[in-house]
């Protein structure tokens, strides 16, 4: 069977999930949702089919499993958003149209994505600019103390979502060029292999950038995500575990230093260690998340059956029992309503996407492609880990979105571009060798 036919088959479960999920919400919440809202699911599935047809024409050899897995996550997100508020599902489906537009543009205009290497310094400057944008007075505002969002008039977005793509593209390109010298010039001191001093500079710059993020953006999770992706790339490029250990140690020292000096970062860690110390204040969010999960149990309460609002409370998004339920904490609602099985299902899909991503990286034929695919996959997986981990208290709470599930335009757009890049790399890697054929 051809790759694209397998992809089409892979979309069948997506359709099934959309039908079952929307029907379940519709039945349970018939009093509150409009009949017409049922079409949001069909609308989204039409987008998926359009993307599939496009891939059939432009990237016939690309990995057949990646796109259905991505669509599956998006479908889960859409059902949960539909359950929270029907208008969220409509908006999210609209964002997927925009996301698909950028997906198509990426594939059309970056057919040879190696051109990205040429503009790497431009890209990294743009990426850092995006990351620091939320600190610009007037347009950036802290949410829960972290600077991750930007508001310009009615338009709100999280620049870090696009910033992560820029950083990974830059690192992949830079390390492709310098990997040899990093390995060859390395010195062993006291049993640990240190990279050559001359080339340590750029590493220190990245480390400094992560620390700056910690201070400026005040979000441990997103700096962990960026720095983790960086370490993943440097490890892929050099195969030196000692570089990773050195980097990790540097990060921990820096994080420890800023945790004790920057109030917001330190508070987050204190709450993480003991959320009960301020159960109605700073610890409230993560406790509500844990209580919601406890309520879910093995199988969950069922879609639409959990207690979204306290009885008697006004039913507006700011009033939900699980705070920020449509974005950061959507995983808590998934466990609440679909139980441990639902939560594990979501994590499994992320794991499968990571597996496909790394598979694409290992099949890629040149260094830049390998590093780019590995970096994009790593940053995607780490983002899922960082936000789920925060919501379930594996690590301190952070403000990134759950990729492809959380509500939000910038997240959808950035991740669709990320998927487009992976598919581009995959198509090139799996293309039958023209020389062998001739």
């Amino acid at each position, binding site marked *: 069977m051809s790759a694209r036919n397998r992809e089409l088959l892979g979309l069948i479960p997506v359709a099934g999930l959309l039908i079952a999920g929307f029907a379940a919400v519709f039945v349970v919440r018939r*009093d509150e949702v409009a009949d017409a809202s049922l079409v949001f699911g069909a609308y989204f599935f039409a987008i998926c089919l359009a993307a599939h047809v496009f891939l059939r024409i432009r990237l016939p050899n690309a990995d057949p499993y990646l796109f259905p897995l991505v669509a599956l996550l998006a479908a889960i997100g859409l059902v949960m958003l539909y359950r929270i508020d029907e208008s969220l599902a409509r908006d999210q489906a609209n964002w997927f149209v925009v996301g698909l537009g950028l997906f198509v543009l990426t594939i059309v205009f970056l057919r040879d994505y190696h051109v990205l290497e040429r503009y790497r310094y431009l890209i990294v400057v743009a990426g850092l600019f995006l990351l620091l944008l939320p600190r610009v007075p007037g347009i950036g505002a802290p949410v829960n103390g972290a600077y991750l969002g930007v508001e310009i008039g009615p338009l709100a977005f999280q620049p870090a979502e696009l910033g992560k793509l820029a950083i990974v593209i830059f690192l992949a390109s830079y390390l492709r060029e310098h990997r040899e010298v990093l390995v060859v010039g390395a010195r062993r001191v006291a049993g640990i292999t240190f990279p050559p001093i001359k080339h340590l500079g750029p590493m220190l710059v990245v480390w400094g950038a992560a620390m700056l993020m910690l201070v400026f953006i005040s979000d441990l999770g997103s700096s962990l995500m960026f720095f983790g992706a960086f370490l993943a790339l440097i490890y892929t490029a050099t195969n030196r575990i000692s570089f990773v250990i050195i980097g990790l140690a540097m990060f921990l020292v820096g994080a420890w230093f800023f945790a004790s000096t920057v109030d917001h970062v330190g508070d987050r860690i204190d709450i993480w260690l003991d959320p009960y110390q301020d159960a109605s204040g700073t610890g409230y969010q993560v406790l509500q998340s844990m209580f919601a999960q406890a309520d879910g149990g093995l199988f969950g309460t069922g879609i639409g059956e959990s207690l979204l609002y306290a009885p008697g409370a006004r039913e507006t998004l700011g009033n939900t029992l699980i705070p920020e339920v449509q974005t950061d904490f959507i995983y808590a609602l998934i466990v609440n309503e679909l139980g441990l099985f639902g939560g594990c299902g979501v994590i499994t899909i992320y794991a499968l996407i990571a597996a496909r991503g790394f598979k694409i990286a*290992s099949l890629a034929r040149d260094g830049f492609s390998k*590093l780019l695919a*590995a970096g994009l996959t790593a940053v995607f997986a780490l983002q899922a880990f960082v936000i789920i981990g925060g919501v379930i208290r594996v690590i301190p709470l952070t403000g990134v979105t759950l990729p492809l599930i959380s509500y939000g335009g910038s997240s959808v757009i950035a991740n669709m571009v990320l998927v487009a890049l992976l598919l581009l790399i995959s198509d090139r890697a799996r293309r039958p060798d023209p020389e062998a054929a001739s």
Partner: protein
Amino acid sequence: MNVPIRRLLAVVLVLFALLVGFTSNWSVFDAAELEAKVENKRPLFEAQQIKRGRILTRDGEVIANSKRTGDDENFQYVRSYPLGSLFGNPIGYSFITQGTSGFERAENATLTGEENEFVSILDQIRGRRRQGSDIVTTLDASAQQLATDQLEATGRPGAVVALEPDTGAVRVMASTPGFDPNRVPEDLDQLNRADPSVLTNRAIQSLYPPGSTFKVVTAAAALDSGAATPDTVLSGASPQTFSGVELANAGGEQFGDIDMRMALTNSVNTYFAQLGEMVGPETLLDYMGRFGFGKDPEVQLPDEQKAASGIFVVDDKRGGFKQVDEGFDIARVAIGQGGEEGEVRASVTQMAEVAAAVANGGELMKPTLVEKVIDPDGRVSDELDPEVQSEVMSEETAAALADMMTSVVAEGTAAGLSVPGATFAGKTGTAEIDIEQDIAQPWFIAFAPVEDPEVAIAVTTDPCAGCFGGEVAGPIATAVMSEILSG
């Protein structure tokens, strides 16, 4: 570069496994602990939205009901008790903030429709909201009303328990003074402070010296163990010395050499003291155990609202109560009293079980408040299925005891009492609390009709001066019994 890529995948999988581990912890392993946290308001919110099952009397009168308030999505259910204080005890109350007590607490799972995960999955698939089952109790509203009125008329705290001997069904469980559960949300503090206590269920939570009603237990032990027969003749002279201290009959009355029937009919202390010594402490404890002493009655009430009857060393200074199984003065325990080394204390429910065991040919049925459970679909999901709690004594022993108890009411200490249209058997008790001031705890246990008993009963009230069981407790018992028999 493929080796590090494979390792990266391994690292990612380890991180994701960590996520699965933590999710399992919160959602399953640690869930019960999280649900119990005071910071967690979810269980309260959810309980508010479950339609709690109704509690009904045997005849279908509504004791407890849940009313829906609020708008569509934000509704909640609030409990109300249409019969007011009549069933405050033993039914108790259930409110979100004040919690639950009594039968409401003991049967919470049934009333809230608590099911295991798999059943609730089925309900989800069928799209059903969780709903509780109705419980039809064995309680009889008119008899409960009569018992309450009669107890209140004495002006003293007291309790009545009436059982169906052959099923264990609790027909009356009255305790005065009582409380109106509808007042709990506003006045719980006041109810808690009331003196005498109104929240205490005197029928099963309070222990009293049973006095001469306990002679039925001693007689059962003596007859059934073979230590004596109904014809065993002992001296009824008064006083006689036991454990170095003189023991007198009520009013110092003298009896000659008498048999057991004569002794029970006239409640002769000295006869039963000797009989107790013949039976011995071990056999007496054995038979007490068979009657249910030594552990909480098995009826559906919370453990913390039940008390086990038995022989206790009472340390009034420290307020301590300690159950003992040796060292007590067997002669005085045998007449339902005791001394420093141990005295008998029994709940009204326990003494009703004693009467019921005799009435039911020696078989004690497990007492129950539940006649049937009706699930939200209207199906009867559970029904009273009489269960034997213990084989207390042989049918012959029970018949001999019933015969003796019949002559108690015909010609003995309870002569003058009657249950219209039925024969009945009984035993009075007048436990000495303060001999000098003549203060005693009046008791009466009975069952009727003797040929085919339909009701067994125990009644007591707080001690009073010059009170006799036959005069204070007896009339309440016969009135309640005739109400039940006519109903």
